Each structure stands twice: as C-alpha cells, then as structure tokens.
C-alpha cells in the first residue's frame, strides 16, 4: 500500500438496527473527513456473520487494502481473518475481539467493565441487599454475554445479599417489557434494573414502570434504581429527569475515530506497542494482536451535562 490517503480502506458495519451502531455509522464519514481517509462505500452485514464474510470478500475484490469490521460473532470470522492475513490485509475490529485470527488492532471498550460498573453502582445504591433485574441482550452476542457475566460475577462476589433475575430479551423491546412486567408482578420488591442496551430497553422499561406507578424520583421509597448502557441522548434526558439513575457511555465517536485512525496507521505501515496512549486509553496485548481499550465513563446526574460525552454531541 501507499503511504498516504490513496490507500483504499474498506469498512463493514455490523448492523443498522440499534441506536448505538447508528451513531457509530454516522460518525464514520465525519471522522474519515477529519483524518483525510479515502473510504470505500461501507457495507453492512446486518448482524449476520455470513454476510460479513461476503462483504469482506467483495471489499477485497474491489481493492481494499485495510479492513475495518465489527464482527458480532467473534468465532465465525476466524477463516476470514486467516484469508485476510494471507493476503496481507491488516484488520481493525471495532467493539468485539475475535477469538482467533490475526488482528492489527481491536478498538473496544471493555464490555466486562460495563457490567461491573453497573453492578457496583446498583449494589451501592441498594446497600448490598434486595432484588435486581438484568435485561440481557442476546445471549449469542459476546457483548451481551460479557456484560451479563461480569454483572453476575460482581454481584456474587461483592454484593451476595442481592438477588439477580436475568431476562434474555434478544435485544427486543417487546420481550424486555413483557419480562420486566411479569417479574415485577412476581417480585414487587425489586429495587434495581440493569439494561444492557438503552436503545431498545429504555422506553419499554420506563413505560412499564410508569404503568405500575413506580416511575418516581430517587429518594422516594418506591424508586427503582435503573442503570442503562449505551449513552444515547435519550438516556441523558432520562437521567436529567430523574427517571433513570445512570448509564454506561459506550463511546461511539471514539470507536469510529480510532478505528479509522488505526486503519490509516496500518496503511502507513505504522506499528504500536502495549501501554498507555496519548488519548487516555491503554493498549493491551492479545494472543492474536493488540487491543486499544477506550474509556467508557459511567454517566450519572453529576456528569450528564459533560460536553465531552458523545451523546451530548449527537443530533
């Protein structure tokens, strides 16, 4: 590849049906402009690894020299990564860490950390006892599983007095609403909720709480502490209103920015080493490459108006 903007960079988007990923998709061309990158038309694999593989083949066929992807199924891309390695095409993955196959850089916030942060926040709010509901994503997604396992492990070790109900919602608002409603009927003394995805879980949760008369400000004995995950503007609005208590901001802007940054670096033949970076994150070493772990702040009423949060910039 050449040493400047002429190198073709191919990018595949993982899905178009969640607010987080849509923000990411919107940031990509913006950031590409800033970094003066010649980006090929993006493909979208719609959460289907088979499509991802087809898309990557097409991008390579069209002359891509670096690939950015976000495989939602981290195992099934192994072959594709192998093929790309054989063709000497460096790969930057966003959000997920492939189990096998060489990657140039993984750009990712730590999903286990999301679960742990949510657990710690809820555990302290509840004083270490009571019942909480976890609205899980899809169990077949690594991020859902990481959040779920980290949340459960943290609860078990740090707050053994708390009972957790886990509801597999498949990232569906309808399932989330039904399961939460049923669980609240069964256990009216539930005091906390952790939602894996604000984009799909926020509105249904608020609607169920409202119907049950449980949508009351913090401090009221009927208040249920709610922690969300994503960091979309609607979550911030809900935090400001007092409807929910916190959210983990998944940095959509940084995902886009650093995915492109590392792709360009790869095209330019740069190399990186584990250790702290100049943008407040740390690069760690993986068996199959490197990972830049971007910061994912917990947003509460105290810092919800921080201009640095991507959700406050999205329009």
């Amino acid at each position, binding site marked *: 590849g050449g040493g400047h903007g002429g190198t073709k960079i191919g990018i595949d988007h993982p899905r*178009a049906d969640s607010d987080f990923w849509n923000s990411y998709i919107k940031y990509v061309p913006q950031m590409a402009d800033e970094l003066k990158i010649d980006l090929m038309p993006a493909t979208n694999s719609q959460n289907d690894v088979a499509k991802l593989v087809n898309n990557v083949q097409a991008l390579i066929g069209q002359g891509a020299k670096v690939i950015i992807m976000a495989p939602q199924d981290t195992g099934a891309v192994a072959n594709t990564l192998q093929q790309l390695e054989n063709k000497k095409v460096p790969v930057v993955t966003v959000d997920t860490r492939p189990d096998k196959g060489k990657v140039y850089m993984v750009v990712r916030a730590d999903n286990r950390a999301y679960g742990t942060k949510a657990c710690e926040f809820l555990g302290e709010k509840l004083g270490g006892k009571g019942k909480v509901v976890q609205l899980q994503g899809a169990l077949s997604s690594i991020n859902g599983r990481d959040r779920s396992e980290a949340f459960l492990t943290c609860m078990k070790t740090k707050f053994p007095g708390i009972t957790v109900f886990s509801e*597999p919602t498949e990232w569906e*608002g309808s399932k989330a609403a*039904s399961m939460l409603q049923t669980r609240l*009927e069964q256990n009216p003394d539930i005091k906390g909720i952790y939602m894996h995805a604000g984009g799909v879980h*926020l509105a249904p949760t608020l609607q169920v709480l*409202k119907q049950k008369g449980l949508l009351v400000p913090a401090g009221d004995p009927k208040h249920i502490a709610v922690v969300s995950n994503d960091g979309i503007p609607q979550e911030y609005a809900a935090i400001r209103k007092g409807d929910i208590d916190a959210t983990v901001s998944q940095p959509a802007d940084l995902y886009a920015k650093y995915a492109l940054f590392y792709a360009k670096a790869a095209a330019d033949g740069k190399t990186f080493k584990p250790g702290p970076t100049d943008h407040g994150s740390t690069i760690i070493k993986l068996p199959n490459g490197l990972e830049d772990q971007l910061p994912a702040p917990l947003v509460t009423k105290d810092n919800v108006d921080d201009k640095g949060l991507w959700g406050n910039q999205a329009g």
Partner: protein
Amino acid sequence: MAPALRVRPARFRDLTLVPVIVLLLVVGAFLDPTFLTAGNLTNVLQQQAAISLLVLAEAMILIAGKFDLSLESTVGTAPAIAVMLIIPVSAGGFGTGLPGTLVIPLALLVGAAIGAINGLLIIRFQLSAFIVTLAMLIVVHGFLQGPTEGKTLFQLPESILYLGSALWLGLPAAVWIAGLLFAAGGFALGYLRGGRALYAIGGNADAARAAGIRVDRVLWAVFILGGTLAALAGILETGRLGAIGNNQGVGWIFMVFAAAVIGGVSMDGGKGTILGALTGVLVIGLVQNILTLIGVSGFWQPVIYGAIILIALMISRIAGGKAQD
C-alpha cells in the same frame, strides 16, 4: 363461533385447546404463586393484545385461503411513518408538520395501504401470496429502517401512546380493544355474509365465484383489513413500549402462525375459527409467561417452548380426531 344449536362434535373442534389452557393454568399455579393472580393474568393479556390482533388478521386471511407474512413489518412501519409525518425534523420526522391528532388515522391508513398493495400484487397480478408477502415483509421493514436510518423514534405524539397504555375500568385498553375485535371477528365470520364468504373462498374459490360471491372484492377487503389490524397492533405496541424501535414486530410472524395453526386454522384455507385462533394466542401467552416466571435458563427456553407447542399440537390433533394440513 360456528352457528349451531344442535350439539355436533365438529363444533367442538374450535375448543380442542381448552384442555391445554386448563392444564397450563393448573401447572402455572402449581409452579409459581404469582401466576394465578389477577395482576399477572392481566399482564399476560396485555402482553398478547398486540400480537393477538395479528393472529386475528392472519386467521381471516388464512381462512380465505391466502397468506400474509408482511403483517409483522406493518407493526413497526405503519405507526413509525405516521409518527414521522407529524414530529419535527429534529426528532427524526419528515417535517410535514401535520397535527398530532392525525397520527392514529394515518397509521391505520398506512396499514391499509400496505394491505392494498398486497392485494394488488396477489389478486390483480395473480402472484404467489407467499412470496409476494415475503418480499413485502422485507420492503415494508425497509421503509421503517430507511427513513429512521435505524434509529429508535423516542419523541412520539401523546395520542399514539394512549391506547397502548391507558386503563379502562381497571383493564388495559389494549385488552378491551383486542377482546372487542375478536368478538367482532368471531361474530362476522360466524354470522355475516361477508364472513361466511371467507370460508367459501378458502374452501373452493371457483365454487364461491359460481355461487355469486365477489371473490376478488372479498379478498381485497381481507388484505386491507389485515393491514389495518396490523397497524392497530403497532399502535398498541407503541403505546406499551413508549417508543418505536427498529425491530418492532420483527420475528412476530412465526408466533402468529403458530398461534393460528395450533388454534385450528388450516394453512390450506377454508377451515378454522376466530375463537380457535384466540385459544392459540392464549396458549402461547401463558407458556411465555410461565417460562418467564420460573426463570428457565434463556439458553434452553426455546427447547421447552417448542416442545410445548408440539404437545399442544398433538393434544389438539387427538381431540380434533382428524389429520391436520
């Protein structure tokens, strides 16, 4: 809903799932004390209200011997387009600035229009209903994804939230609406000329035509009605969830068919009743509720769920006595 004063065994075929429902009630009560409370059962009804309207629509379409897969996409797209016609550009709308009170009529209109397009392709152009509505399922969903660019619509006019969240006489409005529409549907298919025509058309369209039934007109009507019901289901679901996500309704159609078919509606047309379809919806709703209550591992839930559908099917087969199609 079949009209009969004399008791004939055939008339009981609508009710073959009643023992399954009783069994589920008993098992559920045994497994969890919350199950048989009024609150929980009301929740089950509310959770099934929207999907039950799709089952009602699909049952009518199946009885008329046709097929509609696209209903599930209408559930999201119809209310979303109506909402986007009203909300400002900043909230993701088209900026047409129509008044908020129009949102429900607009959504129903979009649903009816989708039904009419299905009708056009299937009846007028005589294309295969399965594949037309499969393509429409994809296209209609694209008309939700395209304009929203995949984003959830959070800022909704109040009026579209009302029906899905209000309580009337202590019961969710959605339950009243679904109940009334089922009663109306059952009545229509049992006692109205137009309703009986569905059975005739589904049973033998040539004979129906020869008997003076305006087959095409009735089929158009049933597709348009189906789309409208799906839009109404979307309105109820929007009210229940408080937002229109990008996959509202996605994946429902399998459950809709499962409910209709275990409820005794034939995929071959001409057979089945609205009451039977309703029992199918209830079975599915109760199974889901029990599985949630007892907290079966999410990983194994599908196995149990599918197995229960099969058992319900066998029971209705044994009770019904005849081979199914």
